[in-house]
């Protein structure tokens, strides 16, 4: 840890004293003189912090003039984004100054959904909320309370409720985003790919994106490095039914048949093994179950995969060979939003196996290794014996590999049915549960049954429309948060979020909210820090740094050991990389991934796929003036051949009608050659239903409302969402389109089904499962 920056710290401490500035109770924070820069032609103060326009947490610097934020730029010292920020990061000040922000605590006076409110004091709102919660707890027990936390700021209140006995936390980032891939990598390597993902993109000579539309999906550090690799001429493979931005940069774009990705990956594995192109040394030394894999993979030839995926066998082979030649600097991206078809763990497992065969774990250009940084806590100790969460109690929804809270569907189900026990109160924190949980009509019905819905947010997103109590949180530009201690980077770092301006209106930071609630709940020893500054100091103590060291720089990085494999260990039952997963076998799942065909669209329907725009983070940003100006509404991508047959022109207004008759629209059509003719694509996050979001209200359509069907993954319970189908309605007429050779394809798909040759049983030579140290996972966004 003896890098140059510690000297700087001493230097700063020194100068603060030399300058003779008054040391305020908050220590060095206010004592340091802020650096300045030029904004346009004016001198402005620079205050570093951390962005939250998405969860990626780039380092930013706020340029402040007379207490007003005039610009946000990237923090050049930050090792992740290195002075760069995306459009959303740049537009952050329009969220801070959004006239539609939640300004005061509000309590409902009208009916749910009527949007009639009374402005109340924080005291009144919190008293009401806590009284109601106590009431519910005494009548039904703590399990009748569910929380939907999102983002770092929700962690404090979450810990308060956990301490009070609440068990039902529905974590969106696991259920609706990255659960399958994290579990798959843990089963294989004993650890997830991390967040940020530990991808050594700059050194990769080949990058394979499977369904990941990096570039439209912007996580600045990752896109910066992706572009760096492109600039250096890395070979890019993009597997996507749509010609994404990433596809436009690719050497190979594989417009795969939706749902058949696992087949493609298995065929690649097949070629690597059959042609002896895998990393033998690595496989021999570190993996378990290669012989079983070799046997099981035999039937999955490129010729077999061609029928399933629509990708020529020769192309599949060519790419596999290229991977084999370029290994280990071949980066197969694990994806992030991986809840597609409900068979997602097995697909992600296939990716993880491919990574292992290429030997790219811990190698430059592959998956680098974390450099753990220590941190401590300002805890809220559990004071009650937790009861059973809603999944455990129901006994039927048991997903053996579910992590991080409970699946949100279980909470919705229990609230609707009262089984296994009634749920009477929901608290949403920084998340739009109407849009992020599929089947919103059920979510809304469940809300109607609640005794209490509390929405904590910065903007009146959909849940607040139904809330009894609305609490305005300070935006990321007005508050402290828990510090970010990031081990998952080649140079690990510690960064802070601190107020760039004072909180506007009556919004409050998460520490204050959590403290006030804990006081009212009568919790002792909960969050034993007097201020957020003290809390940050305490957490950073083991690193021997304090908040004062970071107030003017925002971030401190440390030398990493990204390729240090000398101590490589895998926290799996066999202590090896499990090509054959003993844990899956023990629970009766296929220990080696197999391809399960997904339901094809019924005749006349398109599969509904969705994704992102580079300028939006779903519903969080649609009300932002600048981002709205750039991308005000989503459009439906429709294949040009299909459009012509159906008589639809670019820009036509249509409705989408799903398999259950749910209709969303009107929405404009984008006619393009850049998508297959068996699916349509829209950007997620539009179709806001709350009129209090004046800019975004009713613009574009909501894909969530069209997702009346979901398919939980049997392994994790995560929510497969790409299982919905739509028809297009124009001028009141429901149009139909069926791709050429539709019937044939159905047949081929059936024929392609391969019964696994592998027997599902726990191998004898495996040690009984050791209790493994749990990695600390922090819930993130998607």
């Amino acid at each position, binding site marked *: 840890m003896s890098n140059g920056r510690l000297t700087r710290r001493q230097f700063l401490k020194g100068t603060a004293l030399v300058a003779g500035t008054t040391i305020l109770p908050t220590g060095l924070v206010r004592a340091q003189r802020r650096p300045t820069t030029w904004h346009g032609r004016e001198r402005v103060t620079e205050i570093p912090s951390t962005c939250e326009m998405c969860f990626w947490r780039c380092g930013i610097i706020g340029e402040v003039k007379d207490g007003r934020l*005039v610009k946000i730029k990237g923090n050049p010292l930050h090792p992740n984004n290195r002075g760069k920020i995306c459009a959303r990061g740049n537009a952050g000040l329009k969220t801070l100054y959004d006239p539609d922000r939640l300004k005061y605590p509000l309590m409902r006076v009208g009916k749910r959904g009527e949007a009639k409110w009374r402005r109340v004091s924080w005291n009144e709102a919190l008293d009401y909320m806590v009284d109601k919660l106590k009431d519910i707890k005494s009548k039904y027990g703590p399990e009748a309370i569910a929380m939907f936390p999102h983002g770092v700021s929700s962690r404090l209140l979450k810990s308060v409720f956990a301490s009070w006995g609440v068990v039902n936390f529905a974590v969106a980032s696991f259920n609706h985003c990255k659960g399958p891939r994290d579990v798959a990598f843990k089963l294989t390597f004993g650890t997830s790919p991390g967040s940020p993902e530990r991808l050594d993109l700059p050194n990769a000579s080949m990058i394979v994106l499977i369904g990941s539309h990096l570039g439209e999906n912007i996580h*600045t550090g990752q896109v910066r490095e992706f572009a760096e690799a492109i600039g250096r001429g890395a070979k890019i493979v993009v597997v996507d039914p749509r*010609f994404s*931005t990433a596809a436009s940069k690719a050497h190979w*774009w594989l417009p795969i048949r939706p749902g058949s990705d696992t087949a493609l990956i298995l065929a690649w594995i097949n070629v690597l093994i059959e042609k002896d192109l895998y990393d033998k040394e690595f496989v021999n030394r570190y993996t378990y179950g290669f012989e079983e894999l070799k046997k099981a993979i035999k039937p999955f030839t490129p010729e077999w995969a061609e029928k399933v995926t629509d990708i020529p066998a020769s192309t599949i082979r060519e790419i596999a060979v290229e991977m084999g030649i370029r290994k280990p600097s071949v980066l197969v991206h694990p994806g992030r939003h991986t809840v597609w078809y409900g068979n997602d763990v097995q697909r992600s497992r296939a990716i993880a196996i491919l990574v292992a065969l290429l030997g790219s774990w811990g190698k430059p250009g592959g998956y680098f290794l974390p450099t753990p940084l220590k941190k401590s806590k300002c805890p809220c100790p559990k004071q009650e014996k937790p009861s059973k969460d809603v999944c455990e109690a129901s006994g039927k929804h048991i997903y053996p590999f579910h992590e991080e809270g409970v699946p949100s569907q279980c909470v919705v189900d229990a609230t609707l049915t009262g089984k296994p026990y009634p749920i009477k109160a929901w608290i949403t924190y920084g998340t739009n549960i109407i849009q992020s949980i599929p089947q919103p009509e059920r979510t809304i019905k469940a809300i109607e049954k609640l005794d209490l819905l509390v929405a904590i947010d910065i903007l009146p997103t959909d849940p607040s429309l139904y809330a009894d109590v609305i609490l305005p949180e300070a935006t990321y530009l007005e508050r402290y948060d828990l510090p970010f201690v990031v081990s998952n980077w080649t140079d690990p770092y510690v960064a802070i979020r601190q107020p760039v301006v004072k909180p506007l209106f009556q919004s409050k930071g998460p520490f204050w909210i959590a403290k006030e609630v804990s006081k009212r709940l009568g919790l002792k020893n909960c969050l034993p820090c007097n201020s957020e500054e003290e809390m940050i100091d305490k957490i950073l103590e083991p690193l021997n740094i304090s908040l004062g060291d970071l107030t003017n720089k925002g971030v401190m990085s440390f030398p990493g050991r990204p390729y240090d494999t000398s101590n490589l260990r895998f926290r799996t039952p066999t202590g090896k990389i499990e090509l054959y997963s003993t844990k899956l076998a023990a629970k009766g799942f296929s220990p080696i991934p197999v391809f399960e065909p997904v339901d094809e669209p019924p005749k006349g329907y398109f599969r509904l796929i969705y994704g992102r725009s580079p300028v939006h983070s779903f519903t969080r940003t649609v009300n932002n*003036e600048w981002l709205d100006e750039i991308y005000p509404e989503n459009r439906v991508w429709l294949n040009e051949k299909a459009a012509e047959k159906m008589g639809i022109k670019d820009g036509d207004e249509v409705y989408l009608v799903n398999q259950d008759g749910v209709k969303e629209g009107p929405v404009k059509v984008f006619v393009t050659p850049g998508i297959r003719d068996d699916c349509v694509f829209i950007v997620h996050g539009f179709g806001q239903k709350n009129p209090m979001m004046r800019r975004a209200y009713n613009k574009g359509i909501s894909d969530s409302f069209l997702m009346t069907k979901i398919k939980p993954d049997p392994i994790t319970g995560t929510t497969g969402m790409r299982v919905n189908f739509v028809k297009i309605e124009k001028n009141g007429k429901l149009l139909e389109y069926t791709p050429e050779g539709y019937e044939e394809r159905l047949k081929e798909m059936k024929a392609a089904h391969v019964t696994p040759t592998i027997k599902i049983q726990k191998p004898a030579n495996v040690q009984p499962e050791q209790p493994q140290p749990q990695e600390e996972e922090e819930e993130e966004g998607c």
Partner: protein
Amino acid sequence: MTKYAMVINVEKCVGCHACELACKAEWGVAENEHRTWVKPTYPQSLGGKGLFDLVAAFYVGQCNHCDHPTCVEACPTGATFKREDGIVVVDYDLCIGCGYCVEACPYGARYVHPTLKKVDKCDFCAPRLEKGLEPACVETCITGAKVFGDLEDPTSEVYKLVYEEGARGITSEEVNIGPNVYYIGDEKKVDLIINKFPPRKPKLPTPASIWEKLLKPLLGLGVVASFLGASVAYFIQLFKGEDKFE
């Protein structure tokens, strides 16, 4: 001598619009207006085999700080001029917001600011350059697609990209006024951008229309006649080349 130029690497650019918004924040660009903009070409078929033969790129546009700027020619007050370092700027004290330059620019790089009533456009962040800062768009560009520098300096990145690697400006057979924003990458992509967003023919004002617009606001503002006198010689010289590009 210095000649500033910008090169955009179309292989790296992902069309994220960060550049556009950093510029907006830096210079208070009006709502729905741009000093720099990003437009997708959208996937285009190259006429080959269906899905496998597509191309797409993003057009990142801004003032080209042209060698022969038609905007300068059109400006009746001399507010728009080209500096020695190649940057074409608007002097707000002289700009009367007549908008002739807006019409005269083949790239649509200018707009009349609705509240200031002055013409605004990219100036390569000239005031930032003076303070030793990069242009705001370059500073934020998340992919490093935007490269800024001095074309007269053989050690500069832009020199290399333009003179050695063949970065191209957006010109057509009819309109070539020496743009200094260049595009590099796969030739198919650069061609696509140039063909999809070609320069339009500049519209230059006729003498009569100039006097009409010029006199009204000037009288209204009570600007002294001596300024008019000084301008006349300048206009005469301007009008000669009026139809050069038509």
